[in-house]
């Protein structure tokens, strides 16, 4: 039955036990080893604990006392593969309030079933118990209630698709300043978006557009500059280089953490892209886990999402949003469909993941309208959005070529490119009137030229040298002859250095009209989208697949046997008064004892851990004790002005004198919000152990 742990696992557990603060270390040692004789040799004591837990009887007793609630947490620890307490709570928060969860976790630590090290707050299962727990306790079915087969032939259209993205980009180019100062859309813009994207519109509010525009900002495909939104084309191309599936998950990740109330002030950075990649990978894992044609309980899906989060150095999703909210967003965009019976995966996702993109997706009609047949490469979508005007956003979006749209596209693409691409992408030969009009528009475009840049005027003697320098031409936007050039402002530093290298030292300052363009070398366009699933990548999903099989741990009478032994011993325990017996009974209930012999050498020193009502000094003492212990937590009930008591679990930080009262400052768990409360306002207070293994600073980091 047993399967011995490796030397390395044992050493790690040993190290963690040795790192315990003395008070805790010795209380645990006494619990399991009885009275300790001085001088204390901590490694030897740990060796005795190791010896104890290596015994088959100890293992069987410890495992027998594991109940279904314990099993749930242990399954989460195993499934999430060394999670932080926070992550386990994320997974199980629908089953526990934080107090209960914390108590359970503490209890499992005190029972030496799980542990962590002071230098690494992630939780492990006791290596001696691990095998037996895995074999007879763990139950994925307890975490993920079985799914029900549920077949639907089709699903509603998904709101956030890459077609939506480039179609929105196409429409936004019509508005030089679509936003008001507060980041909301101007009414006309909102109305027009609702009219063109009628399938996205909801309740006459542009909620969906905020989500999608913010998603574009998060992906770095749009940039916000005060009231305007600009397409970052190169960035879009980089996005387009990802697979269709990756693009979809990136988009959904961006939508999931976007505001739906206004356009956010956001500029994409490497950090944000990595974070996005992390969330996208979680969503990808989730959808890899959620099989089609099954109906799941909401709890299951939320847990799957937590379990699907890869182990990376990125900020966990929990710090950005909650699983509930994320699932709601996925439902909002109809990737998941909620029904009264549960949640299922929208079958329409299969179409979106279809990589069979249309090679010739355009039907160009002689009336200048263009029917677009998705799916098509994202880069083609960007091309369309640059040179065409969106008429209606539907399954086959309708566009129109106009002189204005052409001139817009011309600022990005050469005439030959536009014509060639239209030829390539069109399923039928380009109508002659369209071809002619393109030429006519081009003639109009090229008849007036406006070049944004820096005018460089060189005297003849410099001009000869500069003109013939092999690197110079790359920075010239237009050569007007006679030493007059329009230079690329975005590479000003480079060509100024070149001029200096040639010998024009010092360079005079630019007289006026410096370009508003930013140096794009660090812009969003330069950032890479990390791959979501690279073999051998450090990022690993926590679960590889979801099984609808398995069942919760069956009831066993092994635990009852241990209980009976302990109860029987307690009843006949000599030298113990009724209060001490009561305390010991409570500890049996908490499963802190494995053997009857432990009851004999346990020192019962009832400690006061709570205070209530008018016991002001008692409350202060408990706070001070918790502050002194550093890792203790406080449960308190605050009396509020409305009369409604508020219950908090806090990590105390400071107790300050202020006037006639004391002010307790702490951090609420699990939200980490700051709390300040007058001691007089505390109706009830109780001290809790924070963790056996994790020091406050570690806990915070976890």
């Amino acid at each position: 039955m047993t399967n011995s742990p490796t030397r390395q696992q044992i050493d790690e557990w040993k190290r963690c036990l040795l790192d315990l603060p003395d008070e805790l270390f010795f209380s645990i040692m006494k619990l399991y080893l009885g009275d300790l004789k001085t001088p204390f040799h901590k490694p030897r004591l740990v060796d005795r604990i190791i010896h104890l837990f290596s015994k088959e009887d100890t293992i069987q007793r410890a495992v027998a006392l594991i109940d279904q609630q314990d099993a749930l947490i242990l399954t989460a620890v195993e499934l999430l593969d060394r999670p932080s307490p926070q992550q386990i709570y994320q997974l199980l928060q629908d089953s526990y309030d934080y107090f209960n969860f914390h108590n359970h976790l503490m209890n499992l630590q005190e029972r030496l079933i799980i542990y962590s090290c002071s230098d690494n707050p992630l939780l492990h299962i006791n290596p001696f118990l691990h095998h037996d727990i895995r074999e007879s306790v763990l139950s994925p079915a307890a975490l993920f209630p079985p799914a029900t087969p549920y077949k639907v032939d089709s699903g509603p259209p998904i709101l956030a698709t890459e077609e939506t993205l480039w179609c929105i980009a196409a429409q936004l180019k019509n508005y030089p300043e679509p936003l008001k100062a507060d980041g909301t859309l101007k009414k006309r813009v909102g109305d027009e978006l609702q009219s063109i994207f009628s399938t996205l519109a909801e309740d006459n509010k542009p909620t969906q557009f905020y989500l999608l525009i913010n998603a574009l900002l998060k992906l770095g495909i749009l940039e916000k500059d005060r009231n305007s939104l600009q397409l970052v084309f190169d960035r879009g191309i980089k996005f387009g280089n990802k697979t269709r599936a990756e693009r979809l998950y990136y988009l959904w990740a961006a939508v999931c953490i976007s505001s739906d109330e206004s356009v956010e002030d956001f500029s994409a950075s490497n950090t944000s892209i990595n974070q996005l990649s992390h969330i996208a990978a979680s969503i990808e894992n989730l959808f890899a886990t959620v099989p089609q044609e099954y109906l799941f309980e909401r709890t299951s899906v939320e847990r799957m999402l937590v379990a699907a989060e890869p182990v990376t150095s990125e900020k966990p999703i929990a710090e950005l949003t909650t699983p509930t909210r994320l699932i709601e967003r996925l439902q909002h965009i109809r990737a998941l469909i909620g029904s009264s019976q549960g949640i299922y995966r929208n079958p329409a996702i299969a179409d979106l993941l279809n990589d069979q993109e249309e090679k010739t997706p355009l039907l160009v009609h002689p009336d200048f309208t263009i029917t677009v047949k998705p799916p098509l490469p994202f880069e083609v979508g960007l091309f369309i959005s640059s040179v065409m005007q969106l008429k209606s956003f539907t399954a086959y979006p309708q566009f129109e070529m106009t002189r204005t749209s052409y001139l817009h596209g011309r600022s990005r693409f050469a005439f030959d490119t536009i014509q060639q691409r239209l030829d390539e992408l069109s399923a039928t030969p380009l109508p002659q009137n369209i071809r002619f009009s393109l030429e006519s528009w081009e003639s109009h475009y090229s008849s007036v030229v406006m070049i944004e840049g820096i005018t460089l005027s060189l005297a003849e003697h410099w001009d000869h040298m500069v003109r013939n320098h092999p690197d110079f031409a790359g920075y010239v936007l237009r050569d007007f002859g006679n030493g007059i050039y329009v230079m690329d402002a975005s590479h000003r530093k480079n060509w100024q250095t070149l001029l200096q290298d040639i010998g024009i030292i010092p360079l005079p300052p630019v007289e006026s009209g410096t370009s508003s363009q930013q140096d794009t070398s660090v812009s969003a366009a330069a950032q890479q989208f990390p791959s979501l699933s690279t073999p051998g990548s450090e990022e690993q999903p926590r679960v590889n697949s979801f099984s609808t099989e398995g069942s919760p741990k069956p009831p066993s009478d092994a635990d009852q046997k241990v209980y009976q032994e302990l109860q029987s011993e307690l009843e006949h325990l000599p030298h113990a008064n009724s209060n001490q017996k009561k305390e010991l009974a409570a500890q049996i209930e908490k499963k802190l004892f494995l053997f009857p012999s432990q009851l004999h050498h346990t020192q019962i020193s009832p400690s006061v851990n709570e205070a209530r009502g008018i016991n002001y000094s008692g409350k202060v003492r408990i706070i001070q004790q918790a502050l002194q212990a550093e890792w203790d937590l406080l449960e308190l009930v605050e009396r509020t002005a409305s009369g409604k008591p508020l219950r908090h679990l806090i990590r105390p930080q400071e107790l300050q004198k202020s006037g006639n009262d004391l002010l307790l400052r702490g951090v609420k768990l699990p939200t980490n919000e700051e709390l300040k409360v007058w001691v007089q306002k505390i109706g009830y207070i109780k001290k809790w152990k924070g963790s056996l293994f994790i020091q406050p600073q570690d806990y915070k980091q976890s």
Partner: protein
Amino acid sequence: MENSQPEVGPLIVQGDNSILLDVHNPQAEEARADLGLFAELEKSPEHMHTYRITPLSLWNAASAGYTANEISERIRKWSRFSMPENVDYFINDTISRFGKLILREGKDSNTLELHITDPLIQAELQEYNRLKKYLTPTENGFLLDLVNRGTIKSELIKLSYPVKDEAPLKEGAPLTVNLLTKTRDGYDFTVRGYQEEAARAFYGNGQPGTGFGTIVLPCGSGKTIVGMRAIALAGTYTLILAPNTAAVHQWIDEIVDKTDLPREQIGEYTGDKKEFRPITVGTYQILTWRPDKEGIFPHFNLFRNYPWGLIIYDEVHLLPAPIFRVTAEIQAIRRLGLTATLVREDGREDEVFSLVGPKKYDVPWKELEAKGWIAEAICHEIRVPLPQASSIPYATADKRGKYRIAAENPGKDSITLQLVQNHHEDHILVIGQYIQQLTKVAKALGAPLITGKTPNKKREEIYAAFRRGEERVIVVSKVANFAIDLPDASVAIQISGTFGSRQEEAQRLGRILRPKENNSYFYTIVTQHTVEEQFAMNRQKFLTEQGYKYHIDFWGN
């Protein structure tokens, strides 16, 4: 049902209630037949036709007995992808409104009952100010005067409450009309399949709820025949309204030529004559004439005082605003609208539908062209530069002025002459907007000119000479835009037009669509790099949506 499910259906149902029909799909024609029952054809370019489901088209289907389920099922049957839920909802919701308001015969011949089963709708309508003056509440609805039938229906449609009109239509005085199998000119004559379908779509089963509607057929496809067939089906006194006197005469000639009615049974009601006969053909112009701006329309009595059982509105898209009003009054009479281009630049298409009747039948232009029922037309846009002498006036003019300078570009004159020379065997219409320009061109061509100022008699003479081949080229202003039947005209040269009017462009093309042995040619001359280019593009929209292709060239290339 499932066995007939195509692997790749010809329909793409869009979330905005439009439906794309892939015309190259082998099942496209079957799908089109179903679509015609509940959707309107919006565009029919070469590869992909666009239909649209509208409240009116659905209510029309509902009045023909189709349920929401049947409609959705037919869409699903041909759909390439699953039908968007919102479209399904729209169909159900829209159809569910039909039949909640039923118009029935009242207790006396001047009153109608609007029967309403839903008390909430009755309460809502009772509070609606625009309807209060027409409606008298009863226990289950309202009473209204017979003359307000059209107004009420029109207002209720705007409120999204279609009225199921079960009040019987007036039969009118009986008149037996038969179409001949050999015309009086001696040619064989049969009603074409689509003409018969169109007439029957209008007439229905002759029961309440049928007998009013609009037929949309291309220019040159024989809408007059549809009108005559409708008269024969209704068998009643008929008033026909046409846009001008020449069109009135054409109607009379056609009826005389192709029916067994003697000439004396057909009257003309125009500026020249005021005849009342069992079939009377009049102009919109004479009906809307009044002695002063505030006065009554004396000729409206033509509608009211005679026992008409059918009124035909030719070129119904031209219906003038005062006729809307009188049409609202005469809802007890069968009404047939005929048009090729139900596009109004004033956006009042819906009013035409609600007063005359919904679209009952249409057919893509290119489909009739393919079957040889209308001529194949080759469209050219010729770009001509603006002469330097006009460039400064152009630059300093306002937008209207710019358009006029571009439209009257003298460079167009020589091109027109050259085109006329190139088509030396064809019958040619030169069409324009500005009299000065047309006069100059007519003079240069030595061709007769018809404008609004040309007396009707003179116009008829010129048209007749053109038909006989004595005149090969005629120059016409916009008076010839509509309803002028010049069967041999095969070339039209448009030298200027009414800004971006889509229906004008289509109607002008329509002048050369009578089927003939050779192709027809339509030229439009446009000044390069001016606002006229943009207006030209807009003008061409209707035709390009019907699948016509314009070949654009610089003059001289």
